[in-house]
């Protein structure tokens, strides 16, 4: 078990954004995290990687209690993430962005070693050609890949992907899916938030569904997409759910 989230609750004033969510995750799994807008998905990410300190509950990563630890300390344990709204280091080059990811990541590499890792990672996410331009000059799809590259360069054991497919066109989506599979083959455990159903149903080993901060389902994509509560809260139409699954298999 690489991650154990126990009864995590996050309140902002009177609003409970995440409400007693518990789940655990085996190494190498891909876990999909879905739910309507405002369900608390990103907040849950923030509680896991230390951007927020949970109001209640605990998070255990690799057997260590990381609840309330600084986000940079958690990052150095091998937990990397991407942001839903991309956050490139604009005035630095693409290479510098990725090198920074590598040298402050799990292994704390020297600049020289980090440069080598960065070259490999930029190859993986197909950014090598843009290595020496400023991050601000990338287009949206490239910025998403940069987020991914920076997280990967840290050589994480676990990766939190926050809507890396949003805003991409069909070709870009399939390219990104290949990249994600490639990462999983490298043994990295992944939790991903996604709204593109066929992608997440297809990719995930398991899916959990949040609604108003509460976890309303936890299971395989097949089971979750048949779940009445999930259909009512999120998927809407049962036939549509079937159809999505079909598409995913195709």
């Amino acid at each position, binding site marked *: 078990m690489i991650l154990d989230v126990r009864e995590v609750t996050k309140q902002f004033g009177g609003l409970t954004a995440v409400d007693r969510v518990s789940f655990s995750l085996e190494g190498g799994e891909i876990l999909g995290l879905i739910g309507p807008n405002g369900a608390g998905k990103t907040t849950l990410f923030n509680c896991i990687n230390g951007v927020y300190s949970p109001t209640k509950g605990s998070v255990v990563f690799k057997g260590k209690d990381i609840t309330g630890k600084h986000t*940079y300390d958690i990052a150095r344990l091998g937990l990397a993430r991407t942001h839903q709204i991309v956050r490139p280091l604009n005035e630095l080059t693409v290479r510098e962005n990725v*090198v920074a990811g590598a040298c*402050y990541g799990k292994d704390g590499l020297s600049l020289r070693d980090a440069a080598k890792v960065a070259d490999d990672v930029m190859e993986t996410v197909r950014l090598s050609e843009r290595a020496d331009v400023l991050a601000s000059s990338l287009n949206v799809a490239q910025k998403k890949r940069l987020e991914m590259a920076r997280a990967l360069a840290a050589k994480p054991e676990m990766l939190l992907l926050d809507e890396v497919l949003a805003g991409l066109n069909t070709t870009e989506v399939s390219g990104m899916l290949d990249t994600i599979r490639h990462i999983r083959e490298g043994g990295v455990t992944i939790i991903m938030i996604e709204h593109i159903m066929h992608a997440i149903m297809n990719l995930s080993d398991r899916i959990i569904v949040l609604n108003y901060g509460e976890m309303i389902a936890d299971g395989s994509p097949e089971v979750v997409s048949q779940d009445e509560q999930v259909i009512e809260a999120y998927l809407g139409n049962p036939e549509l759910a079937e159809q999505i699954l079909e598409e995913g298999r195709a």
Partner: protein
Amino acid sequence: MKRFTGLLVSLAAVVVLAVIPLITHKDSSMQSMFTILLGIALASSLNILLGYTGYVSFGHIVYFGIGGYVGFYTMAQLGQSLWIALLAGAAAAAVFSFLLGSAILRLRGAYFALATIGVNEAMKALVSNFDPFGGPIGMTLKVSFYKDYGGFSNIGWMSYRLLIVVTLAVVITSYLVKKSKFGLGLMAIREDEDAAEVMGVRAPSAKTWAYVLSAVFPALVGVLFFFKNSNIEPGDAFRLQLSIEMIVMVMLGGLGTVIGPILGAGAYQALRSTLLTVDKVKDVQLAVAGVLLLLIILFIPTGAIGWVRRRFPRLRRVLE
């Protein structure tokens, strides 16, 4: 060798300026170059915080004052040598900036900038009322003190040579920081502090060390300045306007580059000394500094070097 081109160009810029008085042997030339080197050293130090880390310190001159006062006290009251005074001044600035940095670097943006102004003014008021430092009158070094340093007439030149050493040390430090992992962390903080932390950059400690580093050199400059001056008082040591001028120098030359603050300080100080000779209008250089800052922020926010680097990417390796 190629790796260090950027550093060599920056050092060469300082050396070319610094040797002029050494060749001409003119007192007036030394005095004006002293002001320029002082500007370069202060601006380059500030750049580590302002340019690399992205934190605007409006009251950075406080470290010039603290270094100056502690160094001066060490010489005038404790009877120690200039060398001990330099160490004491730098140590005092380091300790104070570490403690203060740990506290106020939690503030971001305008709040941090305001806090730094407050610190400078508070320190000035404190020193003005602190009897061991001579209160509002300050302290004076006796002529006899300078016997060990080749006599009073030699002090200007001796201080000048030492200032060259300090200035070169600042420039080398600035370059090494920029090219290091530490520097990359600082620049990540400048671009997006929250994202940097998520990437594993320990922002609180990185910022504090950047702040300490940018405080130590102004303290050394302060010790030298007041040693040469033979007199120190609160108004001279904690001059807020010099603080603002430091920012103008960095912005003019190019934020976050090694050579930018060198050229910016050179150009600004040269302009300033020309304006100082204008009759009738007192302190016109401050108005000019204000207008200059406004124009830079409006039209070339990356400064002269930033602009050149953007226009001519090939020059990037030469102009670090």
